[in-house]
């Protein structure tokens, strides 16, 4: 078992608090989760040093943290002036190779992710959702299922609210539904989710993780501390995830493995799924729950999300009627294939959450014809050739924005020359507004202007939400100009 700290045996989950030996804490990264963690720790009468690569002036929300007693230093000054911390809390945005992280490890100082800190602080059951794509939808859906059943639950994590930020106003036994990225899984130790969901694994974040093996190991961390009575919800249709699940089910004292699959049982021979889709029905834990026509979310990938969230909700004791109703009433998440408006017959779709190639390909599957695609942002060392190939099938035009423009152009050119695929017209637009306006001019009735950038947003925006909001405001402006 991974729990090497003393913990009261009666308490099944976390909430044991930060160890008494900890007096000084260094929080790396002053983003949303770093700020929240620093404020919580400062509220516990610990000496908290917060550091970030950026200047104090460019950081929003730092003032509030300073008022609660957090000391801010720039990351480069840490080399000379190490704060002698007993604990390092790392924001998800800080890479493993960052100098302070390496140094902390060299000194033998424990490095926690913000998730581990939250686990130490809250005794509540955690339901953690991870995977490459569909995390946000699944997390929001699971929260919605709990809400439908009238169970108190919070939706936290990557989805927008830092997990530690809810300290103080959280009730015991409230379910914490957490969207967890692989970065947050790098430094968890005792974190033991009551339900862990692993949706799929495709090459994403390879710039940070290096290899697929390490990426999978990160994700597998989620289940490392799970014990009998916990549930691991895993996708049997994804080979890497299925292999992990088969290994997990053989682990003595390990969690119950609940497989789900979009294919009917029998198509995969390695294991039997407990939840699946067959004959136009969704089956959860072996029983039909509702016909697929009752689900509003579009696309096959969303069926996986529904299966995962439904299985998890059942594992947490939500009754079947509530799950069926919740799956029926859930309409989707903002910035995820969200319709921003229709002007003169042209539909504007905001999929700002598509920050990787897989997600963009999924979006292109949802809108395969007459698409004006807006691509680009900060590159994540991805291979854009699949997008170029997919674009050749039904896109009218492609507009490139942000840092990745040249890389994208190269990928499109390579596909055009090497594979002889005549793709759509490609236009370097620079920023989002230029791109949307150019697309609006070119598009005819029935076309779709799709923002599915396949890249991170950090070159021009703070996060993908801001990018999505910007897209929405541009579309609103266009609507006003048109009328």
């Amino acid at each position: 078992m991974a729990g090497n700290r003393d913990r009261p045996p009666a308490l099944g989950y976390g909430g044991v608090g930060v160890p008494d030996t900890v007096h000084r804490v260094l929080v790396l990264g002053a983003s949303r989760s770093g700020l929240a963690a620093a404020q919580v720790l400062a509220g516990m009468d610990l000496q908290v040093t917060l550091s970030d690569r950026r200047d104090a002036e460019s950081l929003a929300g730092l003032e509030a943290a300073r008022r609660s007693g957090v000391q801010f230093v720039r990351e480069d000054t840490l080399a000379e002036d190490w704060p002698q911390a007993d604990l390092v809390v790392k924001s998800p945005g800080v890479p493993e190779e960052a100098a302070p992280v390496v140094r902390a490890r060299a000194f033998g100082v424990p490095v926690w992710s913000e998730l581990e800190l939250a686990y130490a602080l809250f005794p509540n059951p955690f339901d953690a959702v991870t995977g490459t794509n569909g995390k946000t939808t699944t997390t929001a859906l699971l929260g919605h299922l709990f809400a439908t059943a009238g169970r108190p639950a919070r939706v936290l994590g990557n989805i927008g609210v830092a997990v530690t930020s809810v300290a103080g106003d959280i009730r015991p036994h409230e379910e914490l539904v957490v969207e967890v990225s692989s970065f947050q899984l790098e430094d968890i130790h005792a974190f033991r989710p009551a339900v862990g969901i692993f949706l799929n694994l495709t090459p994403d974040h390879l710039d940070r993780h290096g290899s697929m093996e390490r990426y999978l190991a990160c994700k597998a961390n989620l289940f490392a501390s799970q014990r009998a009575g916990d549930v691991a919800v895993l996708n049997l249709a994804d080979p890497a995830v299925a292999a992990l699940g088969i290994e997990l089910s053989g682990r003595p004292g390990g969690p119950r493995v609940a497989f789900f699959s979009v294919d009917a049982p029998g198509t995969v021979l390695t294991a039997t799924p407990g939840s699946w889709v067959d004959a136009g029905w969704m089956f959860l834990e072996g029983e039909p729950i509702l016909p697929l026509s009752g689900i509003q979310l579009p696309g096959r990938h969303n069926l996986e999300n529904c299966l995962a969230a439904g299985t998890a909700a059942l594992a947490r004791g939500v009754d079947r009627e509530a799950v069926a109703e919740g799956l029926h009433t859930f309409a989707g998440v903002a910035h995820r294939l969200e319709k921003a408006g229709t002007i003169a017959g042209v539909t504007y779709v905001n999929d700002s959450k598509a920050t990787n190639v897989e997600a963009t390909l999924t979006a292109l599957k949802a809108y395969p014809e007459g698409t004006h695609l807006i691509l680009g942002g900060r590159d994540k060392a991805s291979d854009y050739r699949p997008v170029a190939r997919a674009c050749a099938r039904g896109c009218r035009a492609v507009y490139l924005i942000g840092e990745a423009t040249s890389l994208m152009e190269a990928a499109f050119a390579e596909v055009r020359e090497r594979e002889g695929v005549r793709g759509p017209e490609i236009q370097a637009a620079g920023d989002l507004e230029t791109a949307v306006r150019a697309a609006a001019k070119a598009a005819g009735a029935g076309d779709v202007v799709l923002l599915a950038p396949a890249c991170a947003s950090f070159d021009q925006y703070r996060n993908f939400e801001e990018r999505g909001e910007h897209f929405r405001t541009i579309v609103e402006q266009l609507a006003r100009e048109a009328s």
Partner: protein
Amino acid sequence: MNSSGAHEVRTEPKRRQVSAPERGPNAAVRLRDVALPSYHLVWVTALLLLIAGLCMMLSVSVATTVAGGDKFVYVRQQGVTAAVGLVALLLFTRVDYRKMRAFSVIFLALVALSLVVVHIPGASRSEGGSSSWIPLGPLTFQPSEFAKLAVILAGAHLLSSPRLRKGDFASYMWPFGVVGLGMCGLVILEGDLGTAVIIAGLLLGVLWIGGMRGSQWLAVAGAGVVGALAFTFSSSERMSRVLSFLNPSADPQGTSFQLSQSLVAMGRGGWFGVGPGGSVQKFQYLPQAHTDMIYAILGEEFGLLGAGLVIVLFGLFALACWQLARRCADPMGRHMIAGCGMLVTLQAVVNIGGVTGALPLAGVPLPFISYGRNSLVVMLIAVGLVLAIAKRAPARPVPVQAERYGNVTHIDRRRRDGRARGARPGTR
């Protein structure tokens, strides 16, 4: 006629539209929609068999007048039972079978308990060598009949539950296998070997459908067969009774009395029978003429034709159940349909096999036909269950071919509309 296009004469493929349901791939199809003929076949065959049974009751009732009985004694009773059973059938078709999961376990426990109660002296009534009945006012309750239903219901629930996903032997055998075997043992202790055989057969069938691994299933089945043989050969009286079917004429006044009388009856029937009501064997020659041996009287009065028709009806019933089970996408529904189909078919095979001397005479009623209140009600409930599942269960649609060609042009089409295979304009 069209002189300009003479060289363009080609056979247009005649497209026979195969009724493709105009639904998306996400459409939820109910079992009844994809297998409507099977759905109707289930209740039609059951009803025809029930009517045939009532006719036979009318015929054998007359035989009791010799002993000073009422000439409608069986048909009146059976008619009332049939009415009650049909009401139960209709009620069960209205029940959502998915809500039966909790009920099935309670039902199994109650039946197991009442099988124990049967063995308490004073609480039960014995008849024909076995004490299987519990008197309840004017009625009698036969737990072993309901045990069959309990095995099907509980098996369908337990073998489709999440705990079975690992598929290990222990989760199949506990609690389902062990409780089922226990019930089997209690029925054997009642002295009702036939019903015990049926329950054991259902148990094995449900385990098979539940996806038990072949080797494990063979081990259970083998243990069952060895146990049954050991039980049979442990007493010479049992052994001679069981084995008498091999040579019915060896002891026609003793162990094989029933069988030889039954064969006499069938022999009198010939091809077309002696006519309705014309049976002689029912007049005290053939014991149990109204219950277990009714098929012999049927053979006597309606001949090979009538007896064969009954077999055909049972065959159609089994076929319809099989079709429904095959198409059912819900594991619990599939197990229940298959179990109910097996119950009727297995009992028909054992009964008809026994009466005709093909199998040892086991003493089980012929479904829908034999006199027996508990048996008939249970059989009609089973039919009700099948219909209830077919109405609600999600179904695998029949794989639809987009179009079929009424002529052989599709062969030509592979060769580019009549030209030689692979013909294309020559290279320049």
